[in-house]
């Protein structure tokens, strides 16, 4: 707390509850949550292997009453070169792969960053 709060607390104006568990609403929980975060302290950042980024789970707080959107999207690719499958791609070599979705704002900047770090993003072609 800041000095002001220390001062008014000393005057007995309020007390601070420990860890605020008493305020926790029913619709939040702490548990495994899917995230594509690559920040420091999250596993792939340490290993540099982002191949399983779309399956990554982290213990975190989240709401239990809403459906969270997947941060990844499934794209059918040609297993030979990783390009997008087309109408002419034989079924035997089509593979459904998960990629981190690019943003609508400046997607090219995100793609460049992904390529630099090795984050799997949907192939252009």
């Amino acid at each position, binding site marked *: *707390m*800041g*000095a*002001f*709060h220390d*001062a*008014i607390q000393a*005057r007995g*104006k*309020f*007390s*601070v509850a420990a860890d*605020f568990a008493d*305020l*926790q*609403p029913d*619709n*939040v929980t702490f548990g495994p*949550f899917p*995230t*594509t*975060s*690559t*920040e*420091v302290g*999250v596993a792939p*950042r340490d290993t540099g292997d982002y191949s399983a980024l779309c399956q990554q789970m*982290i213990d*975190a*707080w*989240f*709401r*239990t*009453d*809403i*459906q*969270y*959107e997947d*941060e990844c999207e499934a794209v059918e690719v040609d297993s030979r070169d990783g390009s997008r499958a087309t109408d002419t791609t034989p079924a035997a070599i089509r593979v459904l792969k998960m990629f*981190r979705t*690019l*943003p*609508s*704002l*400046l997607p090219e*900047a*995100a793609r*460049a*960053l*992904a390529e630099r*770090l090795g*984050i799997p993003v949907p192939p252009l072609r």
Partner: protein
Amino acid sequence: MGYHCFGRFRGARRELSHDAIRRHQHKGAAQQATVIFDRNGPGRGIELGTLTFPGAGAPGDKVPARLFIENQVEPRLVRMCQAGWLPAPPPGIDCVENVHTAGYRVTSTLDSALTDQATGLLAESIQMGLQAGCACRDGAIVSIDPQSGEVLVYVPNNDGDPAQRNEGVVDIDQLIESNSPGTAFTPVAFLAWMHGLAKAPMSSLWDTNPLELDGRAITNSRAGGGSEGLISARAALAATQEVAAFRAASEVGIDAVLEMAARLGITTLAMNFDPTWRSHPEMEYGASLASAGVNVRPIDMAYLLATIANTGVMAGTATLASELDPGTLQSLSLAQGSDYDLALMQSRQFVRGDIRLPGTRELDPIVVLEVSDRDGNLLFTQGEPERKRTIDAGSVWLLHTVIPRVLDVRLFPVCRLGCLDRQLRQLTRERWPCAQLCDLISGCSPL
């Protein structure tokens, strides 16, 4: 270095028409000043000041109390009169005059002792900063009890600087001036993003630092620059990362951010609305709002923090204000003649809280607890505050898991706005005296 901490217009001043003054002069001495007390009320409490007619506040009143009366209590009493919450004025007298002459004994919510203490702490901290080379001279403190919505502390300016007192600067009520809350506004953008797009603190954003758009670059202020790749909202918010904040606001849309701000208590933010009334058409907001914030009153920011601290429940009392029709807005820098007069009137009514933008909060912080007539008969008593849930408690809890300091002060969120000069802000980030000054107030990010 130039110093521009102060707003563009002064706090609301009651201006009386010639007719009102003439009526007053003819009515003789039957009138009696209304006296405002602190929260302990008449008899036991401290007299904060008086409302006389004409004029607002006795000259000898202490500045913080006078500005609290002028800008919070008096407008509230007038609206209460107009709404019929107080007895109707005698014929020929309007509510403004009535409030000033009825001899009311008003118990306000202000805690005099705490306000004095806050005033002293602020002055002391600023003095320490000045001695250490931090050219920050002003600040303001307001404390609102989240559970009751009562304004307990109101320090509208640094009352301790003789230089400011000589310049009349202390007369400016910074708590109602619209200025930039800086990164203190960032939680609003992330809350809008999480709430509007079904995201959680560990949902991630592309940290494309620097983010170059329309010829300018949004850059993270983290030491050494760089990028986290995909950064969680939790990390971005905790470390106030500008690129992620910009992307969050951009993804959910600036209208959603403005709507969230309004929902939580901000009264001054809307497209093509200038709360200073200088030029409404020029007022456009973009996603940079998320990390810089603009045009926010500290008292509104404190109410927002109080609402967040109260897990999304706003406590207070009905505003009793009229809704402003944006179609009638006039700008002081653009209008002429009668339109200019209208702009002036609109700006004054807005500063007093008499008119509000559509879609802004329905409740106000409580400043009046009781009103008695001159004979001691109780005319009004503030009952239990109204409570309105503004946002799902779960969404607010998620915010609390990221910035627990807001919850740390859940019973006493306060806000300070000082060191507003942009260049000065850059300097103060690096200098401990100013950081310590910011630390005076929990619940506000350092500027």
